[in-house]
C-alpha cells in the first residue's frame, strides 16, 4: 500500500495538515501574471519560491514558465529586500525586456514588511524603469489564503494598475477568467466569438501555456491579454467573472474604479453552468444565442442520455479548488452521480453554502469540508469509512486511487502525470462531453479490467 498509514479512524486534528488540497498564494499570482502578454512574473523572496512555483507550473503545463526572483540572502532578510528588488528590476529590463514586470511577495518579504509601493517608486526615481515599461505588484503572503487567493490578488492588481475609464463606455464585455486551463480559455473565447460578442478576456493563458513548437523560442509568447486591452477593460460596459473565489474581488474593484457593472457566475463546467454562461453573455452583450450553440448543447444532452445508466448513483470523492468543485459537483448531479465527499483547502462560506444547497436533496449523506486541514488525508479516511466508485482531482489522487482500486479522473492543479489538460477543454458543452467521456472511460475501463470473465461485455 502506498498510503499504508492512513486508516479509517479519524482524530480531531488542530495543527497538522496531511496531504494538502491547496498550496500557497504566490504560485497563483505567478500563473495569473503569465496571462498578460509580455509580462514577466517576479517573485520577491527566496530563490526557492520562484524555483518551486516555476517547477510546479512547468510540470503541469509542460510549457516554458518564465519568472524571476529577488534571490533574498540572510542579509536581505535582516535589512529588507529593497535593494534586491531595485537591482532585479534593472537587470530584468536590461536583459529580458518585458513590457511589464508583475511583482508578487512571499511569506519572507511579507514577514519582514517590505513595502512594494515604496520600493517600486524608488526604482522609478532611480531611472530603473525604462520609458513605456511598467512594474506592477501585489501582496501574496503565503500564510493567508491559498494559491487561489494569490491568483485573485494578482488579477486585482491588473485592474489597479491598468484598467482605465474614459468618458465613453464601449459595447464590450470583460470575461474575467478564474483559474482554469488555457484550453478552457480558448473554448470560452470560441463560444464568445460564435455568439458574435465583443469581449476582452483577462487573464488569458491561451497562446502562452499551450504554445506551438516551431524551433523558435519566444520568451513572451503570442498569447496573453495585451496591455491596451487590459487598459480598455475600464471602458467595457459589463464584466462577467468566472468563478467567485478567483474573480469576484477583481470585478468589485473594476466596478468601483471604472464603473463597470458585473455578474459573477461559475466557471462553465458542465451543462448548467454553461447554460448560465451563455445566458449571461447573450444578455449582457445583447446578442441572441445562435442555433449552432443550441446544437452543441443538444449533443451534450445526447451524450449524457446515451450513457446515463453508467453514471447513475455512482459515488464520487473529489478535491481541488472551490471554483472548479462547485460547477463540477453540479455537473455530477446533472449526470445523476453522487458526489459524496468533497474537500478543498481553500476556505470560504460560498463553497460551504453551495455544497449545502446542491447536495441536500440529491446526496444528503455527502460530507464536505473547506479550509485548514480539509486535506486529502481526511478525504481518504472518509473513503476508507465508506467507499466510493470514482475519485476526481489532481495527480496526488493516484496514490489513493491505486490503494483503494478506484477509477480516477485527473482534473485541477497540478496534473503532472498525464498531458492534455491544457489542450482539451473541460468547459462549455464540448468540454462537458470531454469531461463526461473521461468519467465514462475511467469507469468502464475499470469495469473491463476487474469484472468476472463471464461478465465481460462486447457492447456497452
Amino acid at each position, binding site marked *: 500500500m502506498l*498510503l*499504508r*498509514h492512513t486508516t479509517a479512524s479519524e*482524530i480531531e486534528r*488542530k*495543527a*497538522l*495538515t*496531511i496531504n*494538502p488540497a491547496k*498550496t*500557497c*498564494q*504566490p504560485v497563483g499570482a505567478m500563473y495569473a501574471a503569465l496571462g498578460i502578454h509580455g509580462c514577466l512574473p517576479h517573485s520577491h*523572496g*527566496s*530563490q*526557492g519560491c520562484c*524555483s*518551486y512555483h516555476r*517547477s*510546479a507550473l*512547468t*510540470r503541469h503545463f*509542460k*510549457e*516554458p514558465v*518564465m*519568472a*524571476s526572483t529577488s534571490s*533574498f*540572502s*540572510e542579509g*536581505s*532578510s535582516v535589512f529588507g529586500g529593497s535593494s*534586491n528588488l531595485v*537591482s532585479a528590476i534593472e*537587470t*530584468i529590463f*536590461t*536583459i*529580458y525586456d518585458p513590457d511589464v514586470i508583475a511583482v508578487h511577495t*512571499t*511569506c*519572507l518579504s511579507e*514577514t519582514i514588511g517590505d513595502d512594494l509601493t515604496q520600493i517600486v517608486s524608488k526604482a522609478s526615481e532611480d531611472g530603473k524603469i525604462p520609458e513605456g515599461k511598467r512594474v506592477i505588484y501585489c501582496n501574496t503572503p*503565503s*500564510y*493567508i489564503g*491559498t494559491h487561489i487567493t494569490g491568483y485573485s490578488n494578482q488579477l486585482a492588481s491588473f485592474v489597479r494598475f491598468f484598467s482605465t475609464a474614459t468618458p465613453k463606455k464601449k459595447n464590450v464585455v470583460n470575461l474575467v477568467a478564474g483559474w482554469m486551463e488555457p484550453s478552457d480559455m480558448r473554448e470560452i473565447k470560441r463560444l464568445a466569438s460564435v455568439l458574435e460578442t465583443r469581449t476582452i478576456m483577462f487573464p488569458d493563458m491561451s497562446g502562452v501555456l499551450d504554445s506551438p513548437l*516551431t*524551433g*523558435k*523560442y*519566444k*520568451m513572451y509568447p503570442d498569447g496573453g491579454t495585451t496591455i491596451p486591452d487590459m487598459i480598455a477593460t475600464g471602458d467595457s460596459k459589463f464584466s462577467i467573472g468566472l468563478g467567485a473565489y478567483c474573480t469576484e474581488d477583481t470585478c468589485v474593484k473594476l466596478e468601483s474604479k471604472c464603473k463597470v457593472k458585473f455578474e459573477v457566475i461559475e466557471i462553465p463546467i458542465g451543462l448548467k453552468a454553461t447554460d448560465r454562461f451563455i445566458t449571461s453573455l447573450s444578455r449582457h452583450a445583447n446578442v441572441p444565442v445562435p442555433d449552432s450553440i443550441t446544437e452543441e448543447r443538444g449533443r451534450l444532452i445526447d451524450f449524457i442520455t446515451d450513457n446515463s445508466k453508467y453514471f447513475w448513483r455512482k459515488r464520487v470523492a473529489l478535491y481541488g479548488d472551490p471554483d472548479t468543485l462547485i460547477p463540477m459537483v453540479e455537473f455530477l448531479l446533472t449526470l445523476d452521480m453522487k458526489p459524496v465527499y468533497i474537500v478543498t*483547502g481553500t476556505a470560504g462560506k460560498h463553497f460551504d453554502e453551495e455544497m449545502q444547497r446542491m447536495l441536500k436533496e440529491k446526496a444528503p449523506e455527502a460530507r464536505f469540508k473547506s479550509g*485548514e486541514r480539509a486535506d486529502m*488525508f481526511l478525504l481518504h479516511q472518509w473513503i476508507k469509512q465508506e467507499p466510493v466508485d470514482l475519485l476526481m482531482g489532481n495527480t496526488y489522487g493516484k*496514490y489513493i486511487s491505486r490503494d483503494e482500486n478506484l477509477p480516477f479522473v485527473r482534473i485541477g492543479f497540478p496534473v503532472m502525470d498525464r498531458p492534455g489538460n491544457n489542450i482539451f477543454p473541460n468547459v462549455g458543452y464540448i468540454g462537458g462531453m470531454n469531461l463526461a467521456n473521461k468519467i465514462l472511460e475511467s469507469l468502464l475501463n475499470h469495469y473491463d479490467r476487474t469484472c468476472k470473465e463471464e461478465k465481460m461485455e462486447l457492447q456497452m
Partner: protein
Amino acid sequence: MVYESDKTKETETLIAELKGFKEEVITKYPNKVAKKRAKSIVLSDPVDTPQIQANVRTIPGIITQRGCTYAGCKGVVLGPTRDIVNITHGPIGCGFYSWLTRRNQTKPEDENAANFITYCFSTDMQDSNIVFGGEEKLKQAIREAYELFHPKAIAIFSTCPVGLIGDDVHRVARHMKEEIGNGINIFGFSCEGYRGVSQSAGHHIANNGLFKNLIGRDDEKKGSLKYRVNLLGEYNIGGDAFELERVFEKCGINLVSTFSGDSTVQKFENAHTADLNMVMCHRSINYVAEMMETAFGIPWIKVQPIGANSTAKMLRKITQYFEEQELIDRVEEVIAEEMKEVETVRAAIYPKTRGKKAMLFVGGSRAHHYQDLFEELGMTTLAAGYEFGHRDDYEGRHVIPTIQIDADSRNIEELTVTKDETRYNPRKTEEEMKKLEAEGMEFNEYHGLMKQLEKGALVIDDLSHYEMEKLIEKYKPDVFCAGVKEKYVVQKMGIPLKQLHNYDSGGPYAGFKGAVNFYKDIEQMVCASIWQDLKAPWESEEYIEAQFVY
C-alpha cells in the same frame, strides 16, 4: 573526455569557437552584472585548471536555475528516507512543492514497514501563527503525528518565516522528545530558504543534522557479508540506488547504508559500522564523509557509478581497498557478466550517437558524472556547469583552503567533530593507507568537473536563462541536459532536453543496467522522428517554387 577517435572535425571547430562566448554574452548585462558573471564563465583546461567563481549569491532578476536551502535540506538529503515523519514548519507551499516531486523511490522491507514518503506533513502556518509565534502549533502537530502514526523519528524543517519570527524548532524538538518519550527521536533543522546562496547550504545543514541526531546510535554490526561499505550522496532517483544495491549484493559487498536513497533511520544509525565510505554526490554529502572519518576513522573515496566503465572502476576501487582475492575474483566475474549486455546495447546505439554534442547544466555532481555516459556513447560535452556547486566541485578539493568564506557561508554551522572516544577505529593503519595510496588509491580526494572536460570547453556556474538561450542559439547541441524549468524552453528551440534531476521519469541510470537505460533513452532523444517535422511543407521555399513550376 571523449575518446580521441570519437572527436569529429566539426566538434573541434565548435570548441574553438567557444572562446568568444563569454565576451559576447556579458555585453548584454548591466556593468556590475557583467563584471560578476564574467568570473563564473571560464574555458576548461584539464591540466592547468582555471579558477572559477562559484557558490556566490545569484544576481537578483537574472533568472537562475537555483532553489533554496529548505529544498536542499528537506527535499534533497532528508526527503528520501522512508520512516521519518518529515514535518514542514511553515506556510503550506514549501511542504506541498517538496511532496514526492524528486522521484525518490523506496521499497519498504514488508507490508508493515513504515513508509511516509507518499505523505506531506505541514503545520500550515496562518497569519496568527506569524504574529503570535508558531511553536505551540508545531508542538500540537507533532503530538497529532505521533498519535496517528507512531513513527520512530520526526524531523522538523524550518521555512523562511520561522527564523524571522524566532520560533526555535530545536527547543520544540527537545521538548516533544521528552513529552512523548517511548524512545522517539525528534530533531529540527534551521534550513530557512534565505540561508546560503542555493540548495547547497541546505545540504550542509542536513549533513550536520544527520551526524548529530542519527549516525552512530546503533553499534551492532548487521548483515553477514564482510566487506562493509556506505554509499553517500545517492538519492535513488528513478531507482538508481536499487540498481547499485543489486550490483553490490551480486559482488558480495555489504552496503550498510545509503545516504539517503531507499534509506531508513536504522541504516543511518548503523552507518558508522562500515569500513569504507564512498562519496557519489560530493557536493551534497562530503561533510558527512569527513565527519565520519574524523569521529570513527572510516576513510572515504570518491566514486561515480554513472556509466558502465565508471561503475566497474568503482567496484575495482573497492577491491583494491579490501585487498582480498576472493572479492577481486567475484567483482571481475560480475563486471564481465554485466558488461555483456552493456556492450551489446552500446554497440547498437553508438553509431547513432557518436560525434554528437551535449551540454550539461545541472546539480552539484551530475554535470560531471553524466559526462562518463556521454563518452561511452561517443558524445562530446561542449559546455557544463553546476547549479549549486562550489569551487572544489569544479577545480578539485585541493582549492578548499584557498576558498574565501563569505557572509553567506559563515552563517552555516560548521560542526567541530573530534575522535569518538570509544568507537574511533582507523580501518587501515597509516602504513596500509600509504601503501594503498602508492598503488593509486586516492582518499579524501575529488578532482572536480574540469579535469574531465575537453580543453577549451565552456564552464559556466549558475547559468542564467539568457546565457542558456545564447548557448543553444550559437552552438546548437544535440542534447541539452538540465532540469524541468529549462526543459520546455530548450525544446521550443527544437533541441531535445534530457532532465537530469528527474530523468524525464526514466531511470535508473546508475550502475550497469542504468547505463543501458541511458543509452536507450539518449538514442530515443536524438533519433526521435518528430524533430524533423518542425516546419510545415508550405513554410519551405521549395514548396513555393514547386507551386510556380506547376
